[in-house]
């Protein structure tokens, strides 16, 4: 039966039933990457970018090629969150070409790349979507650190110094204000407390002194001693000795207790003696507190520039911390490189490590050219530069990431921009440096004081800046040199003296220099700001303002003294009389105690000598008599 069946045709050596489906799968994959992958990658970048930035991100077109390992993206637009009709940044085109040699080692190395036509604040074709920001978390480490820096700066700079000076020069009526603040004056309330304390204690001390002056036990021992002296019988005399010793001990104990109490009282009297000094200190504290309340500035003219410009500078310091944290997040410390290991399914064996003559980090952008051409956009400029050595493993390549950018933003009248950012994560401790130089840029109107007493500032002018920032581990060093040429000043004050002094000072300043340095660990930043404007203003204002400050201080002191004078005098008199009275009495008690103790000791000694000496003589006489009897 089996022979009837025609033998099946033998199959060839290639398994076409598998090869064909796999071939089709490859063809489909190729088709997907040729026709659809770019579109899906574009959508993915737009979605991830929008979620990451918090505002709509658009990509014009993406072209990738597996064969050449290239990536090209055109017209990347990132919506400005504050102004959704515009882009915060627009990039005309980006090109990357990966190195196949590295790709075959599962590494991504971009030998050369270009980022062209960078524009800022360009108008969008449609209004971009903005994702609502999450509620700010004050508990985050970043927020805490920013608050810490701001607190440091606020403590350092306080309020606007010029406004306070103008306010002071205007003069104030402190009388009414002090009446309102009377409850807050420490001196007055404390003097009242002291008076009550002194009067209460006086009653207690009187009672104590009466108690301590009691001499009944001493009198009793003296009485007993007289009886003892009058006794003729030596044996009876000797019998009384223990009772006298017991009485003497009791008397000595009582005297010691009285002396200890007297010493305690002396200490309390001494404490009261320190009350006048405490009152003086409280007066000083009240004056300092009122100085703050009435905004009487504590002027250190050597630090005038810091006070004048410090609040502006602190914004940059907070930003520096923020960018350092971001840099740390995206360029983390390289941990130990993962060694290729054989899974220990069986024995591990021995891995031979041959010298690496050609190795790559996981990602390495070797060199990227950056350029931007002036367009109609307000923020577009002629920039060119390079971005080099962006990598996931800086320690492997051993060179820092550097962004070097030069150009002009003519539409904004910003000329001669030179920017160099260096992110060095090649060592154990990361170091970030930023150097920026702008030859000229317009400075908008800047008010240094805008209070009701003084409006002082600079109208729009042209400046030059040199900015160097270095962030190393947990410390920073920022140097900022700013020069304003031919500035126009705004000086408006109700006080003629201030108006005149400031106007005279600033009219002579044709160039304003500002040199600032902020350095030290983040937890304890040192600030130093120098400016010829600050120095000249300080010199001009010093005499006038110092006089006014002294006057104000004296006025406040007089007012406080006036409020507390009567009670202060009463307290002083009470303290002095109390001290004089009790100190004398207590000294007398202590001296008397010492004398009594001495007397008791002496009498006790005599009594013991008499009792023992008398009895011995008697026995000697009786012995002699007996010897005579024996001779009969």
């Amino acid at each position: 039966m089996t022979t009837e069946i025609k033998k099946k045709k033998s199959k060839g050596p290639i398994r076409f039933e598998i090869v064909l489906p796999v071939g089709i799968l490859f063809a489909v994959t190729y088709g997907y990457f040729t026709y659809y992958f770019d579109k899906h990658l574009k959508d993915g970048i737009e979605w991830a970018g929008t979620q990451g930035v918090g505002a709509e991100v658009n990509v014009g077109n993406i072209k990738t090629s597996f064969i050449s390992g290239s990536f090209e993206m055109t017209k990347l637009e990132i919506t400005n969150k504050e102004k959704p009709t515009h882009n915060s940044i627009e990039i005309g085109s980006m090109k990357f070409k990966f190195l196949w040699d590295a790709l075959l080692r599962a590494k991504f190395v971009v030998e050369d790349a270009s980022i062209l036509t960078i524009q800022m604040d360009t108008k969008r074709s449609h209004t971009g979507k903005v994702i609502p920001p999450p509620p700010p978390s004050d508990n985050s480490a970043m927020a805490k650190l920013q608050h810490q820096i701001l607190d440091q700066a606020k403590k350092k700079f306080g309020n606007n110094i010029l406004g306070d000076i103008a306010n002071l020069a205007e003069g104030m009526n402190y009388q009414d204000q002090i009446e309102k603040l009377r409850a807050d004056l420490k001196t007055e309330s404390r003097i009242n407390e002291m008076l009550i304390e002194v009067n209460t204690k006086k009653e207690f001390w009187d009672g104590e002194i009466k108690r301590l002056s009691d001499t009944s036990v001493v009198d009793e021992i003296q009485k007993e001693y007289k009886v003892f002296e009058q006794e003729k019988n030596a044996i009876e005399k000797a019998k009384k000795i223990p009772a006298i010793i017991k009485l003497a001990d009791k008397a000595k104990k009582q005297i010691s207790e009285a002396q200890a109490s007297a010493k305690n009282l002396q200490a309390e009297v001494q404490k009261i003696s320190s009350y006048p000094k405490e009152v003086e200190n409280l007066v000083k504290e009240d004056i300092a507190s009122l100085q703050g309340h009435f905004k009487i500035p504590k002027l250190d003219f050597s630090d005038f520039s810091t006070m004048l410009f410090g609040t502006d500078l602190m914004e940059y310091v907070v930003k520096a911390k923020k960018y350092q944290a971001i840099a740390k997040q995206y360029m983390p410390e390289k941990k130990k490189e993962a060694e290729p290991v054989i899974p220990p399914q069986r024995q591990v064996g021995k891995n031979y490590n041959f010298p690496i003559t050609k190795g790559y980090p996981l990602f390495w952008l070797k060199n990227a050219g950056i350029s931007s051409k002036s367009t109609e956009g307000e923020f577009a400029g002629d920039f060119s530069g390079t971005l080099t050595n962006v990598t996931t493993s800086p320690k492997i390549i051993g060179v820092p990431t550097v962004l070097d950018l030069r150009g002009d933003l003519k539409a904004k009248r910003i000329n001669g921009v030179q920017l160099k950012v260096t992110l060095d994560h090649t060592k154990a401790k990361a170091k970030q440096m930023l150097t920026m130089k702008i030859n000229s840029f317009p400075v908008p109107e800047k008010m240094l004081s805008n209070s009701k007493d003084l409006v002082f500032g600079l109208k729009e002018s042209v400046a030059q800046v040199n900015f160097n920032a270095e962030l190393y581990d947990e410390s920073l060093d920022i140097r900022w040199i700013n020069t304003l040429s031919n500035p126009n000043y705004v000086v408006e004050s109700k006080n003629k003296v201030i108006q005149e002094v400031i106007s005279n000072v600033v009219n002579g300043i044709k160039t304003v220099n500002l040199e600032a340095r902020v350095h030290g660990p983040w937890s304890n930043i040192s600030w130093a700001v120098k400016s010829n404007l600050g120095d000249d203003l300080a010199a001009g204002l010093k005499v006038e303002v110092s006089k006014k400050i002294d006057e104000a201080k004296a006025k406040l002191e007089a007012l406080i003294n006036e409020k507390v004078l009567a009670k202060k005098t009463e307290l002083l008199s009470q303290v002095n009389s109390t001290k004089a009275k009790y100190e004398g009495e207590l000294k007398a008690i202590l001296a008397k105690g010492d004398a009594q103790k001495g007397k008791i000791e002496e009498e006790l000694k005599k009594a013991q000598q008499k009792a023992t000496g008398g009895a011995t003589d008697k026995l000697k006489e009786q012995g002699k008599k007996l010897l005579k009897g024996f001779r009969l």
Partner: protein
Amino acid sequence: MTLILKQFFSFIKLLHSDTGFISLSLGCVCGFILGMTPTLSLQSLLVFLLLFVFRIQIGAALLTAFFFKFVAFLLDPAFDSVGQWALDIPSMQSLYTSLYNMPLVPFTRFNNSIVMGSAIITILLSPFVYLLSAFLIKKYRESIVEKFKETKLFKAWKATSLYQWYYKYDQFFGN
């Protein structure tokens, strides 16, 4: 999974047929290489590619690989010694350094003593494994399968309608 099961059934069927001993023997050789290699590496993937592209019996390869995994475990010290000897040859150091720095080649893990040792031994023994497996298959067919076919039980089974139905089905739809 269906493909693997199908390959196993195909292996049993082929083992009991009169043809296909080359496919079975090659499968045994591939299984021998897979079983001896200690980890999934580039050469293992190459063997899998050969298995899928060429008509090598996959079931035989998987069963042999399963068997040799245990044997290889016992042979690891020998592989280690041979591998270390090969990797320590001074005249080969520059070649190894070049290979180590070439793309793709490091994925073979050739720098591991056990991988290197097992590769040398399996390459050297592969022809013998092929010949041995071919001999054993032929011997099995002659001494066991033929004798079994002569038994009354098998003849009775062949006479059943169920067997006749299966035989026809296999001729029309089987591989």
